[in-house]
């Protein structure tokens, strides 16, 4: 469903990675591993379409993705930052992002999704009062209710307690069982079974080598 051929990324003078091939079908989870700075986040942003590849081709259902709005409708992205407004409550924030995707969701569905990550009592508090872990969970709830088929998760378990990690593992499991795709960047061993792995430490090229 999602395929990458010979993906390369150059930032300024530095070649971050090159020759990355990937192919992901329904229900699969691709784990991106590698040391800090090896380009996991860069590859995720490249797959999201935020960074154009310096070389190579990214295909979604056999078609090259350019600035395709159809592709963007299929993906949900969780970056380093939680993208949460301190002035808004979690429910307001979630409702806004759902509306941006053209989905009109009843408040009830948002409440149910928040409850799954143990946020049921916090739905109406402004997010500035939430802890870092709680904000991360709000951001993950945004992914869970997005209805997107492809989840791009950058270190989703950072700063979370065991209960939340278990809840998110369950969410990812359900998403995959429903035919969803997940690409996750993580250092260390994340508590989810991966169907594929790419180790970017090996793909990284730190010199000023040229891309063909």
């Amino acid at each position: 469903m999602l395929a990458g051929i010979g993906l390369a990324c150059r930032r300024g003078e530095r070649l971050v990675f090159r020759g990355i091939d990937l192919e992901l079908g329904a229900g699969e989870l691709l784990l991106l591993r590698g040391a800090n700075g090896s380009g996991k986040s860069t590859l995720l942003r490249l797959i999201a379409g935020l960074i154009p590849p310096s070389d190579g081709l990214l295909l979604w259902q056999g078609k090259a993705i350019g600035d395709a709005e159809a592709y963007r409708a299929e993906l949900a992205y969780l970056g380093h930052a939680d993208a949460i407004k301190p002035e808004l409550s979690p429910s307001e924030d979630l409702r806004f992002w759902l509306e941006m995707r053209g989905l009109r969701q009843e408040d009830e569905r948002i409440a149910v999704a928040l409850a799954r990550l143990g946020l049921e009592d916090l739905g109406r508090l402004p997010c500035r009062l939430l802890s870092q872990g709680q904000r991360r969970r709000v951001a993950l709830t945004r992914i869970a209710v997005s209805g997107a088929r492809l989840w791009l998760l950058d270190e989703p378990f950072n700063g979370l307690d065991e209960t939340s990690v278990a809840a998110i593992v369950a969410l990812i499991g359900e998403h995959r069982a429903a035919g969803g795709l997940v690409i996750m960047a993580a250092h260390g061993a994340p508590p989810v079974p991966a169907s594929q792995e790419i180790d970017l430490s090996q793909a990284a090229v730190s010199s000023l080598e040229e891309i063909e």
Partner: protein
Amino acid sequence: MTYFVALLRRDLRLALRQGFDAALVIVFFVLAAILFPFAIGPDPRLLGPIAGGVVWVTAMLASLLSLERLFLADYQDGALDLLALAPEPLSAIVLAKVAAHWLTTGLPLIVATPLVGILLGAPAVSILPLLASLALGTPTLSLVGAIGAGLSLGARRGGVLIPLLVLPLYLPVLIFGAAAVEAGTSGASLYAPLAILGALLLAALPLAPLAAAAAVRNALR
């Protein structure tokens, strides 16, 4: 259109909850205008003829002051990534943000203008042309300013960069805005300067969001 309204409503709600941030523009506008009688003297024969120009310059500077806010918070907290990934054209998303920016800066400036005009002893006949020229000119300021705000993202001291990028582009608006006030005061026809302000707005309306969207995309790379 759901997304346009949703984003507009969210940005207005954020501006409302930030409270003082939004009010700062008006406070600056009034305070800066009040400085002129102190510096030039309270004589209405001196102040009256320059009041229109003073209002235009201070309104422009106040609008400039607020431009950094346009994308910076969303850029820093990662929300701009998600906006760029929304399944809608980024230029339309930028336009919604610009609309919210104008409603929270341009519109309040226009509302405060009669008060500032009276404080400066502007001739009564010049108030209406002043309001008309600001109504046509300030949306262009927000639109053009978005390009500078987008380009300054990711730059160190981006806030200082914006005026350098944007002020040259503001000049046509200032020139014809002031010309409209001048025409109104001297009893000449307002049509030509207002028509040109309108033309500038119509040109900026489709073009500026495209340029600003490209600048934002570039900043997110």
